[in-house]
């Protein structure tokens, strides 16, 4: 589904992404781990079109999207959430999701009838919120939500776009430890229901091993190791570099 070929992005002397190759298959949940500054978020920014690479290629569903605008990527089915939550803070939870749906269906040019008149879109937005157990909060604004709910809403917006590939940048950062698994359970349940391929950046190894089919380890802009979660946990080089455990 997604093929990254020799992707490079340097910021001056900093090799944020240094000739990275990777592949994500359909329906696969892949986690990227690595120390701070390993290039994980830069990689997600390159895939989502937020940054443009120096060289290399990004193929999505066999289309070259290396230099495509974020708009084109979204239309093709690349959605993302953010490490620092990015929401529409002064409109309701329902409108946060509904606006994404209006955009997806090309309806945001409709400028005379109230949004409530488009009942099928409203119903779909409530269905999306139901998937994440959030429909009871539909009339609140994001300012009235907990950190965990904000994270879920951030992902629900990306989910509403019916993305074929979801890029989740630290979906549990800032969430209370007790709520992390609750947040991930509702996210992964919704993702698996739709068979969406997912790339997750995560630091918490319990989350990584509990929810990923495959783990990619990045270090200083390069892919250091790749494999099933238990294989990665046993990899000596990863243990030493990422977890600081020398055996």
């Amino acid at each position: 589904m997604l093929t990254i070929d020799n992707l490079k992005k340097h910021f001056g002397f900093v090799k944020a992404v240094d000739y990275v190759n990777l592949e994500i298959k359909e329906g696969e949940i892949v986690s990227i781990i690595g120390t701070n500054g390993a290039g994980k978020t830069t990689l997600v920014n390159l895939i989502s079109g937020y940054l443009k690479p120096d060289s290399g290629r990004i193929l999505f569903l066999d289309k070259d999207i290396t230099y495509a605008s974020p708009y084109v990527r979204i239309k093709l089915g690349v959605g993302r959430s953010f490490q620092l939550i990015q929401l529409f803070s002064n409109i309701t939870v329902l409108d946060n999701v509904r606006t994404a749906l209006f955009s997806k269906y090309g309806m945001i040019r409709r400028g005379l009838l109230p949004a409530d008149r488009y009942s099928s879109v409203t119903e779909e937005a409530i269905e999306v919120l139901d998937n994440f157990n959030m429909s009871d909060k539909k009339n609140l604004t994001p300012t009235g939500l907990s950190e965990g709910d904000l994270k879920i809403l951030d992902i629900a917006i990306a989910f509403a776009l019916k993305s074929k590939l979801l890029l989740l940048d630290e979906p549990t950062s800032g969430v209370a430890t007790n709520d992390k698994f609750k947040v991930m359970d509702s996210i992964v349940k919704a993702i698996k229901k739709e068979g969406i391929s997912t790339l997750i950046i995560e630091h918490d190894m319990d989350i990584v091993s509990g929810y990923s089919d495959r783990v990619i380890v990045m270090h200083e802009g390069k892919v250091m190791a790749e494999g099933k979660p238990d294989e990665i946990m046993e990899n000596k080089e990863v243990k030493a570099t990422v977890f600081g455990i020398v055996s």
Partner: protein
Amino acid sequence: MFKNPRWILYLLILITLLFIPRFLSIHDLMLFEYGITFAIVGLGFNLLLGYTGLLSFGHGAYFAAGAYTVAMIGKYFPQAYSLEILIPAALFFSLVLSIIFGFVCVRHTKIFFSILALSLSMLLFALLFKLYHITGGSDGLRVPLPTLFGMSFKGIRRPEFLSGTYYYFLLIVFAISFIVMRGIVSSPFGKALQAIRDNEVRAELIGIRVRRYRLYAFCISGVFVGLGGALWTFVNGHVTADLSHWVFSGEIVYMTLLGGFGIFEGPIIGAIIFTYLKLYAMGNTQYWMFVIGATLIVLVMLLPNGVAGAVSSLWTKIIKKSD
């Protein structure tokens, strides 16, 4: 529409407004008409400030575009000097100017947007001021009474015209503008603008072409302000280049803040209050600008959400207490 109690209230206000000419003196009615034209301006201006998050200090330019369209048709094409031609013409020329200026301005946000909007309006001011033989320069242009669907108002004095046919014409145009703008802000398009206002990065990443939608908002806003400008000319009877000066643009900002830009009805209330406040301040003291400035300071410190915002939060508190 009328299932919502808010619309019933709007209808009651409209019915009351129909009978206002019977109770107000001609002078007060004229002031009220100034207020209505500024209310249309406020509706347009707030689409950009309250719903798209862009503060323009140059909206006097589109007001001037509407006003000068009327005045120049009156001077150069008197045979076409009829309201049913003048209003569409004013809408067209304010749209054209909005597209040109908006194309430049929406490439930036925040203070850069505000300054660019201001600069471009001052450019128009310089043109209107310097091209004396075309625009009348500092003397401006006189605006005679128009015809309406063949009805001529020759021999009628302006106050009589304003307290009769024109008042109802103004009210109809205001009601249409109100309904259209209400539709725009609550539509999917309006939601997209609010999404851009709240978080442009995220808006782009849900597939909204941010710059393009800002331009759409800018143009709609400019057209409403141009319409307000065109309607204002008949009340005022005279246009000058000052309409495109940043001081006048500042007054548009002021009245929107006064009413409250977070509430749809805010700029309408602000426009009406501002019209009376300015006139009574000017009539009572030569330091009227001091009064306006002091009011603004009090407003920012005590009523940051404007008069409408304060009334709305008071109403919410009363409702909560009664529950």
